[in-house]
């Protein structure tokens, strides 16, 4: 499989297919990042789409100092910030009110009971709510670390802040989430994956 850097080089040479391979490779992580930052499915989709359009238009300015993925993350986070500012909203924990057994059954692993499935869904919703209550900086640091596996240094570069600040934001954010989950009674109710 070709590396991101190779595909970027080909894209810069005018190969549209190579850029579309990058899109295919990164559209889900970018959508997931946008969704977790702003909390709205449709808007996250729009942000993801706009990210790739901007990246394509600005490809000539990509000098390769950072990884292509980091560059995409930066564009996405900027768009999310614009969205939050424009909408004057705090991110929301979007989740359906009811639990659809049919839908859950489709997601079940063979060893998982329906009861555990329901608990898992409820826990996911509680996590989303706790995350939505965090300050932007702490939430973003946790998202980049937990769900995208960036190193402390990569996060610091992406957010233009010192390494120690990233660690502090992570520690504080995790502590708040832990407390909120405990207050919601989640820790004792959920047995965790076996």
């Amino acid at each position, binding site marked *: 499989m070709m590396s991101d850097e190779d595909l970027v080089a080909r894209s810069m040479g005018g190969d549209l297919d190579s850029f579309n391979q990058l899109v295919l490779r990164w559209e889900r992580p970018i959508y997931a990042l946008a969704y977790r930052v702003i909390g709205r499915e449709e808007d996250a989709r729009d942000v993801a789409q706009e990210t790739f359009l901007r990246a394509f238009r600005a490809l000539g300015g990509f000098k390769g100092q950072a990884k292509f993925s980091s560059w995409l993350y930066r564009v996405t986070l900027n768009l999310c910030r614009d969205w939050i500012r424009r909408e004057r909203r705090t991110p929301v924990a979007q989740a359906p009110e009811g639990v659809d057994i049919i839908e859950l059954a489709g997601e079940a692993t063979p060893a998982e009971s329906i009861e555990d499935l329901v608990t898992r869904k409820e826990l*996911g919703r509680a996590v989303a709510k706790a995350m939505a209550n965090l300050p932007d900086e702490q939430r973003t640091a946790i998202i980049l670390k937990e769900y995208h596996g960036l190193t402390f240094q990569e996060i610091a570069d992406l957010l233009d802040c010192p390494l120690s600040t990233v660690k502090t934001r992570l520690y504080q954010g995790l502590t708040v989430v832990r407390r909120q989950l405990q207050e919601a009674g989640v820790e004792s109710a959920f047995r965790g994956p076996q």
Partner: protein
Amino acid sequence: MICDKELLVGYLYDELTRSEQNEFDRHLGQCRECRAEVEELRATRTHLALWRPPEPDLGFEIVRRPAAAASPASRWSISPIWGLAAAAVLVLAAASAIANLEVRAGRDGFVVRTGWNRAVDSSAAGVAAPPSESRSADAGAAELQTILQRVTELELRLSRERPGRDSLVAVADTSATQPAGAAKLTDAEILKRVREIVSESEKRQQSVVATRVVQAMRELEAAYRTELVRLQQGINQNQGLRDAEVYRQREMLNQVYRLVGQQR
């Protein structure tokens, strides 16, 4: 060693150097508080992993738009009158294109095409076409040539009045030269002439365009109705069977869920 939260986070995410990790391991052996905190934050990380975004229907793809036709006009300085003349030519070109006429301005003058990929000039005049379409296209081409010749005349007159200006309108036919001793035109006269040209062209093209639009609309509507009927038949056929099956499965699973709940 005091409780260092940065080290604790580094330990949690396995991003410490070997020596830092050994140091923190020793600290954990002595500090019950940090030990408990590491365990609790590990549990929190496990819970965080369960927050998943919905599965979206993405499939983004960057598609290049067809390249726009080259615009040599950008090289030229355009006065208001020349702008008007250019606008007139564009209007004529647009109307002609709808009526299967194509006009392109090139370095060597205008290229006029009629019908589907059929050139009007003598080199391609022999290409076969349906008689009615050929007649209307040829008539349109002849009319267009006349109009273009008149625009060219205007251009040449203005060139004499305003020497040194670049020409926006390319010469369509070099044999269509300016009659000798032509009178000078004022801007108002030019404006009037251009309006007349546009008006004449619009009138003549209107009927051809209207006929073709109506024909296209009828074809589109017929195709749409056929497809609609076909789809409806398919949907009606499948809907009955599917509804019954989904309802049965949903009832069964809900019953299972209720039983599990009662046994808890």
